[in-house]
């Protein structure tokens, strides 16, 4: 009897939760659409294929970084080193390709391996040395920033000897097949990475433990989960994804610019939070992050296309970030 009652309320809750989740995503998507519509009305130059491609291209690096850091944020952590790590990965690719004269695949591997290794170090500092993620990755941010400058001797490394390198971000596989739709490879990479991470989060053990760590690490540990090991793995995976971001930016700039990167972490984290992932961990979606990154890219591009004065661009961006998240908050309140 009481069992029946319980069962009903259980099912209702689950269904309601699923519905409100879907609704929320739709609505987050709606605010993206709203922005696009607003800019399209405000400026005839905004809604053009070339500009849309430019926006997607602009979202690609930040998007990849944001997808990577989404993993870490879901565990309840944070990673401030992603910006400078991206640069360091680009630098190591330069070392391998330009200085070492090795073939392209090895350069790609270098970026991924560098990212994963640095992620491993951050993860170990957090999981084993119990250093708060904020500090561990702040330290890594500084260390990697310095290392990029040291390794390169503060000079950019160019990829002129590896002409195909620029194709990673700038070529268009899709455009080769469907000429009317010249989506740059960088964008393709972003979507592939996002899809892969969404799959990992939704379907695999690693994804499950990512949520478990953020939700209640102690409970996971008491359940026999090797929480430290998995946490390190998650940081390493995120690092590898940041390595992909490093490849993209290096490919776009046809060079590894050692002084770049600082500040990219805040932008990526902002995209994640706008996308509805909670900084306290335990919940978050890759789709949300993707939408968050797109919102930021649309906003930046739209204000520029409207030729808003740069100082006002900053103000408006600040306001819209707050409003977007406030809207999300209201919706959640309503869903509850």
């Amino acid at each position, binding site marked *: 009897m009481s069992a029946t009652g319980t069962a009903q309320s259980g099912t209702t809750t689950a269904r309601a939760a699923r519905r409100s989740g879907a609704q929320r995503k739709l609505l987050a998507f709606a605010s993206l659409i709203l922005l696009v519509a607003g800019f399209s009305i405000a*400026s005839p*130059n*905004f809604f*053009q294929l*070339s*500009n849309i491609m*430019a926006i997607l*291209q*602009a979202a690609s*690096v930040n998007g990849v970084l944001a997808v990577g850091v989404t993993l870490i944020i879901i565990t309840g952590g944070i990673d401030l080193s992603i910006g400078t790590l991206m640069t360091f990965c680009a630098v190591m690719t330069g070392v391998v390709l330009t200085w070492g004269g090795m073939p392209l695949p090895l350069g790609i591997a270098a970026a991924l391996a560098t990212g994963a290794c640095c992620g491993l170090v951050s993860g170990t500092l957090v999981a084993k040395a119990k250093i708060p993620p904020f500090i561990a990755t702040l330290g890594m941010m500084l260390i990697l920033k310095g290392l990029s*400058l040291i390794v390169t001797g*503060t*000079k*950019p490394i*160019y990829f*002129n000897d590896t002409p195909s390198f620029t194709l990673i971000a*700038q070529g268009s596989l899709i455009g080769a097949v469907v000429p009317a739709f010249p989506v740059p490879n960088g964008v393709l990479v972003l979507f592939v990475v996002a899809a892969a991470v969404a799959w990992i989060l939704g379907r695999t053990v690693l994804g499950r433990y990512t949520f478990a760590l953020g939700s209640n690490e102690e409970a996971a540990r008491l359940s026999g989960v090797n929480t430290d090991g998995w946490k390190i793995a998650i940081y390493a995976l995120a690092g590898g994804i940041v390595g992909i971001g490093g490849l993209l*930016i290096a490919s*776009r*700039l*046809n*060079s590894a*610019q*050692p*002084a*770049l990167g*600082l500040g990219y972490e805040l932008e990526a984290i902002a995209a994640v939070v706008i996308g509805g992932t909670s900084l306290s961990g335990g919940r978050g979606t890759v789709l949300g992050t993707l939408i968050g990154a797109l919102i930021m890219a649309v906003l*930046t*591009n739209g204000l*520029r*296309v*409207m*030729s808003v004065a*740069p*100082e006002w661009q900053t103000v408006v961006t600040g306001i819209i970030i707050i409003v977007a998240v406030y809207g999300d908050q209201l919706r959640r309140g309503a869903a509850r």
Partner: protein
Amino acid sequence: QDQMYIPLISKGFQHQFWQAVKAGADRAGAELGVTVSFEGPDNESQVDKQIDMLAAALAKHPAAIGFAALDSQAAIPLLRQAQEADIPVIAFDSGVDSDIPVATAATDNLAAAALAADKMAEMIGGAGPVAVVAHDQTSRTGVDRRDGFVNRMKEAHPDVEIVDIEYGGGDHLQSTEITKAILTAHPDIKGIFGTNEGSAIGVVNGVRESGVKGVTVIGYDSGKAQKDAIRDGLMAGAITQNPVGIGYETVKAAVAAAKGEPVEKTIDTGFFWYDKTNIDDPEIAAVLYD
């Protein structure tokens, strides 16, 4: 103390420009047998960080100091402290509004940017919309180069309209995105001026990525990518300063001042226009750097 010690406090150290200044300073140091150190903040808005660096440099009892002020007024108390301790100060890169520096080795950024404006006007046929992608909205170099370009256009080329000025912080990627947005907003744009190496390369990237033809790109400073872009015709030309010379002259003047020898009050290290035609001339090649 066996060797004379001369610290140079610059406006930055990560950009190629500053690395070239450093190279010149190091060369002078080696030639003259003095120890030179070189440092600067991460970006040109960090006025107080630079002040702290100056304070730390003073603590080392140097023979003389080279100083590229981000804000000359803000540094005056410390400069006065240097004066009281009989440490001569050599200003470099841009002047210091004070009579404390015994010499100034600098580029006239206003005049240099005006030259860029003249070249731009000439190349686009004296009329049409142009835009500026500047590296900084508040720093002395950013403001001077922007204003030098804009004012010269207004005065000498009234038919050239400056339709947009954006700031990319000298970040290559940001400047790329900015350029693409400018091209979207103003499809009829004739030319874009990038005010430092990062900005100029960003403009070249942005123009190339958006596939627009016929936009005249003028840059500033030097560097491998910029030289390549000029050789490839992606960039019409650029202004270069003589950073190696700035560094060299600064140290040279510092040593002289420390020894009590007379030094020239202003050392104009000059600036040059370079393009495809003269990039390999020996005197231009000498002021270009990678």
